[in-house]
Every structure is written in structure tokens, then in C-alpha cells.
């Protein structure tokens, strides 16, 4: 069990910088998810914690001890790689046995066999123990890679996109399995992914990172409801959050928000947001509206409704995904009906009760 901390870690390469001034600290036994798009620096981060990369600047700590100069083979962490990194010339059993060979006082042959068998059974790969690694399927390889990391008792687990190459159908089941494993093992875990659904469902806390810079650290709830900038708001949610540049106006003493691109998108925001927007009358701000928060009717339903024309319709299971046109502005809406909606049909949106995400022009959250 360990607390892992990074302090102002920067990783420079010849032509790029993978990580910029990254700092965070895990809690003991926490399941921390690092969420970000490809190239955000997530794998680099894990490798620095594991000790196979040395940061250009900044220090790494384990339980308040500076381990930056500690070689990777002495750090007692376990890591799974996105491409599994299973040793191709060894069998599954030999792969799992590898960590034992490095120990100063390795357990007896019998103990090793037992441990390997125990973990193999737990991950349901015991029937594969004598297979050569290149004969395995993606899902099987993934479990072997997990098993290999579990034969020791590391102080922390590092998982690099473990589910990104797994079949979509199996992914859901594997996610649940990973969750269960994590609580059984009760070890500090740092889990890297680009999939926000994984992040929201697995993490105690989430670190959102983009281009090597930490954007936000928070619980899933905070990341979803209280994004600190537009990037974080966009990262979570499908379809993407709608973002509009709007001017805050005062019409008849009423706060009204209107898009700069289209006067058709103009509405009176919810009461609690009207108070917040008082300060910004006459100014331009960015407003985020989640597609699932938009009120939707097939017929006009009151005078706070906005008329839109449907440009695109997709049936998503029990809901419909609509891309609608408000004048020149496009807006995505997630409906709660599976009724088929035709193109160019008029539908009506109600934004009067919608929670709004407020950002300034540069994309940073407004309080």
C-alpha cells in the first residue's frame, strides 16, 4: 500500500515535451484514473512512476520518500502495458514466473507454483499456463499481463489502457472484473485511459490531462458537474457537450443569453444562473449545455420554447440523438424517446431549466 506523488514533473524530448509541470498525490489504496486523449502523456507518466523513464525535471515520491533516483527494478510497482508486453519466447507460466526470478530471496518452487496457479485461476487463465504467448487472443493476453503483475505484492498497480484493445462487447464485463479485482487487492492503483466511461465508473478520483498538462483533479462527480475548463467539459459525455459563444443581455430587466452566431438561440437561463450572469451583462461568455439536459418536445409547449430544424437523427438504443439547427447554430440534443424523427422536421427545445456550464472567452470556468 502506498501513496504515490509527483512534484512538478516535466518530461522533455528533443522535439516535444510530453509532460509539463505535473504534480499530484494519490491517497493510500486509491483507484486513481488518468484520463486524456492520445498523446496526452499518460504512458510517459506511468513509466516515470515505474522508474523506467527519468523525468527531465521534478521528483517522484512513494510514501513521502523521494524515489526519483531509485532504479525501476527496485520500486516494487507492477505495470501492465497497452500492448501487453508479454515475453514472446516464454509460455504464460514462464511470463508469470518472471518476477520471482529477480527476487533476492525467491519463494520455493512449490510456493511459486501455488501462487501462479492461484492467480491464474482467479483470472480464469489456468488452462493456458503452458501455452506460448503468441497463441493467445487479445483478451487472454490482457489477463496474462494482469496476472503477471499480480504474482508479487506490489505497492502500487499501474495500468496503461488495459481495455483499449479488447473487444467492445467484452470491455464492459472486463471493466466490472477490474473493479472487483481492484477492491479485492485493495492496493493503490493508477489507471490510464482515454475512455471517459471507464474513468467515471472506475475512479475514486480522476486526473484529466491534455498535452502533458493537468487540467483537473477531482472525483467523477466533480469532473462531470464542475469542469474547470472547456476541455474537461468536452472530455466527458457523448455526444459532446454543446459550446456556444454568447452575449449576456438584459431585456426588460430580464437576463437573456443569446448566441453571437444566431439570434435564434436566445433564452432565459434558470434562476440560479441568472444571478451568476448579472456580472457579465454586456459581455461575451462561453456557455456549455449537455445534450441530455435539454428539454425536448415534438410540439411547441409554452413560450420559452425554441424552434429548431432537425439536421441529423440517430437512434441510440432507447434515446435519439439529434443535431438541430437554430438559425446558424448547431445544437446536439439527446432525447428520451425512441420515436423516429424525420429530417427537416421542426422540434422544440426548452432551455429554461437546463444546467449551464459557464466559461470565459478563454475557456476557463466562471464561478
Amino acid at each position, binding site marked *: 500500500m502506498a501513496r504515490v506523488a509527483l512534484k512538478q514533473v516535466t518530461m522533455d524530448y*528533443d522535439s516535444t515535451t510530453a509532460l509539463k509541470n505535473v504534480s499530484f498525490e494519490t491517497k493510500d489504496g486509491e483507484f486513481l484514473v488518468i484520463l486524456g486523449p492520445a498523446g496526452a502523456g499518460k504512458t510517459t507518466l506511468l*513509466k516515470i512512476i*515505474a*522508474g*523506467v523513464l527519468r523525468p527531465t525535471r521534478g521528483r517522484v515520491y512513494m510514501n513521502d520518500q523521494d524515489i526519483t533516483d531509485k*532504479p*525501476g*527494478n*527496485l*520500486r516494487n*510497482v*507492477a*505495470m501492465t*502495458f497497452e*500492448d501487453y*508486453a508479454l*515475453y*514472446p*519466447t516464454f509460455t504464460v507460466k514462464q511470463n508469470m514466473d*518472471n*518476477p520471482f*526470478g*529477480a*527476487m533476492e530471496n525467491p519463494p520455493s518452487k512449490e510456493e511459486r507454483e501455488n501462487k501462479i496457479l492461484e492467480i491464474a485461476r482467479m483470472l480464469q487463465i489456468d488452462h493456458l499456463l503452458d501455452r506460448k504467448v503468441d497463441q493467445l487472443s487479445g483478451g487472454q493476453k490482457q489477463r496474462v499481463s494482469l496476472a*503477471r503483475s499480480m504474482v*508479487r505484492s506490489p505497492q502500487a498497480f499501474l495500468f496503461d489502457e488495459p481495455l483499449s484493445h479488447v473487444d467492445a462487447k467484452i470491455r464492459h464485463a472486463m471493466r466490472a472484473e477490474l473493479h472487483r479485482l481492484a477492491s479485492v487487492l485493495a492496493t493503490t492503483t493508477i489507471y490510464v485511459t482515454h475512455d471517459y466511461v471507464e474513468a467515471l465508473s472506475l475512479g475514486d478520483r480522476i486526473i484529466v490531462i491534455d498535452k502533458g498538462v493537468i487540467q483537473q483533479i477531482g472525483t467523477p462527480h466533480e469532473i462531470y458537474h464542475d469542469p474547470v475548463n472547456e476541455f474537461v467539459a468536452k472530455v466527458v459525455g457523448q455526444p459532446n457537450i454543446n459550446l456556444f459563444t454568447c452575449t449576456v443581455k438584459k431585456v426588460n430587466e430580464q437576463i437573456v443569453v443569446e448566441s453571437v452566431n444566431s439570434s435564434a438561440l436566445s433564452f432565459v437561463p434558470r434562476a440560479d444562473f441568472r444571478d451568476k450572469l448579472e456580472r457579465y451583462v454586456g459581455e461575451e461568455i462561453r456557455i456549455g449545455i449537455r445534450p441530455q439536459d435539454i428539454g425536448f418536445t415534438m410540439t411547441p409547449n409554452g413560450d420559452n420554447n425554441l424552434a429548431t430544424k432537425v439536421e441529423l437523427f440517430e437512434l441510440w438504443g432507447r434515446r435519439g440523438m439529434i443535431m438541430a439547427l437554430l438559425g446558424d447554430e448547431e445544437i446536439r440534443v439527446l432525447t428520451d424517446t425512441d420515436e423516429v424523427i424525420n429530417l427537416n422536421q421542426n422540434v422544440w427545445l426548452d432551455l429554461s431549466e437546463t444546467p449551464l456550464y459557464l466559461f470565459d472567452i478563454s475557456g476557463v470556468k466562471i464561478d
Partner: protein
Amino acid sequence: MENNQVQEKKNWLSIIGTNLALIIIFAFFLFPIIWMVGMSFKTIDDILAWPPKFFFTPTLANFKAIITSQMELRGVGSIPIDFMQGFWHTLIISATAVIVSVILGVPASYALSRFNFKGREDIAFTFLSFRFGPELLVIIPIYFIFQKINLMDTYAGLIWVYQLITLPMIIWIMRSYVDDVPVDFEDACVIDGYPRWRAVFKIVLPIIRPGIAASALLAFIYAWNNFLFALVLGSSKTSTLTISAMKFISAEALRYGIMSAGIVISFLPILAFSVFAQRYFVRGLSMGAIKR
């Protein structure tokens, strides 16, 4: 239907044409080799016959003479033949040179592949340039140097100079093999608890082993086939097969049979290897540029 018939006729023509062309081309490539092997089994009379004999009674006399280093002359007894020595010299020098190159070169190729340091490409290019430069540029001064430091006509001297041939090959070919092994394998092994050098030995080495075999074989062949180095820097104590064979040319006509046997002995083992290892040689022949 007519269309099918036309297609079939076209196909027939192309099949016959392709096969014919290949027969002609390979007749060209293989005839000298086959003729040479034939000549090595001919008596000296058959060799000198005109018109040349395509059918003859084979004899092992030439091989016997070469291997026992004695040639029987009709009615005069036997005279010594100086050839087998060349075989052993070539074998020892080539094999040792390759072994040295593998020991020095494989780690070097790892360093060039994994470490990113200033001057890396310059050093790599320096190794490559040995493959491209005219040999005499360094051989002539080495000729003078060796005379001064007594390395002339020695195994050690030649093995060292042969590094100019074998080392760049091993380094460049193995570099491309090491490049193909993802670093993640080593990293995973380090995280498992092994210091990096042990990780490399345990994980990377088994993966590149076929590459080492292939590049070592190719380097061995190039060393075996060398002429110029041995010509300038070798002499009686280290004369290689190529030198020995060359000497036969200036000998009298009676030696042609033995010369043929000698030539065949000098290339037959190599040809046997290369028939089986051909597909591994593509990477080697292109110094690692082509990976299939």
C-alpha cells in the same frame, strides 16, 4: 465462349513464356557452377579434351589429391599440393573474425538502437562507411604499419583487419533487429525486478537470436570470400583459399584438375548454407534497410 478461349490462350502463352525465360536465365546463372563441379570430377585428360566432354567417367582423384595434399604424377611419384592449408586458414580467420564481431557488434547495435546520444548517427554512419570505402585506402597504410609492429602475415592481424568487413555488417543488421523489439519488453522486465542489463539478456537476446545467426552467417560468407586483404597483408602463413586458388592459375596445365577440386571445395559449403538461409539474407544484404 470465345473470350474464354482467348484468355486461355493468353494464359498458356504466358505460362510457357515465363517458364522459358526462367530456364534461360537460370541456365546462365547455374551453368558455370555445374560445369565447375563437373570439371572437378574429370581426369586431366578429360579436362583438356577438345571438344569439351559433357559426358565422362567421374573420378575422385582430384579431391583425393587436394585433401591428402599430394598429387600423383604418372610415373614420377607424387608432389605436394599446397591447398588444404588455405582451407584451414580461411576457416579459422573467418570464423574468429565473425565471433569477435558478434561479441563487439551486438552490444554496439543495442547501444545504437536504444540510446539517444549526441553523435549517434555520425558514429553509425562511420560504421556504414567502412562498407563503402575502397579497401586499399586503409589496407595500404596498414601494410606499412603491420610490418612495423610485426602483425604482417599473422592470424591476429588479419582477424583484426577483417573487422572492417564483418563488424559494420553485424552492427547495422542487428541494429534493425533490435529496433524491431519494442522497448516495452525490457521495461516490463525491469519492472518485474531485473536490472536493465539482465532484462536485455533474458528477454531481448532470445528474440534477436535468429537475427544474430543470419547476420553472422552472412558476415562469415563475406569474410570467407575475401581476397584483397589476404593478398596484401597475408603471406605463406595465412594464405586464404582465394590466394591458394589464384596461385593455381600460374601453375602448369597439369594442375587444372586439382584446381577444379580446390575451387569446388572452397565454395560448396557456402552454397549449401545459402540455399537454406536465402530468405534471411535480404535484411543482411541491404544492411538492414529492407526488413523482409
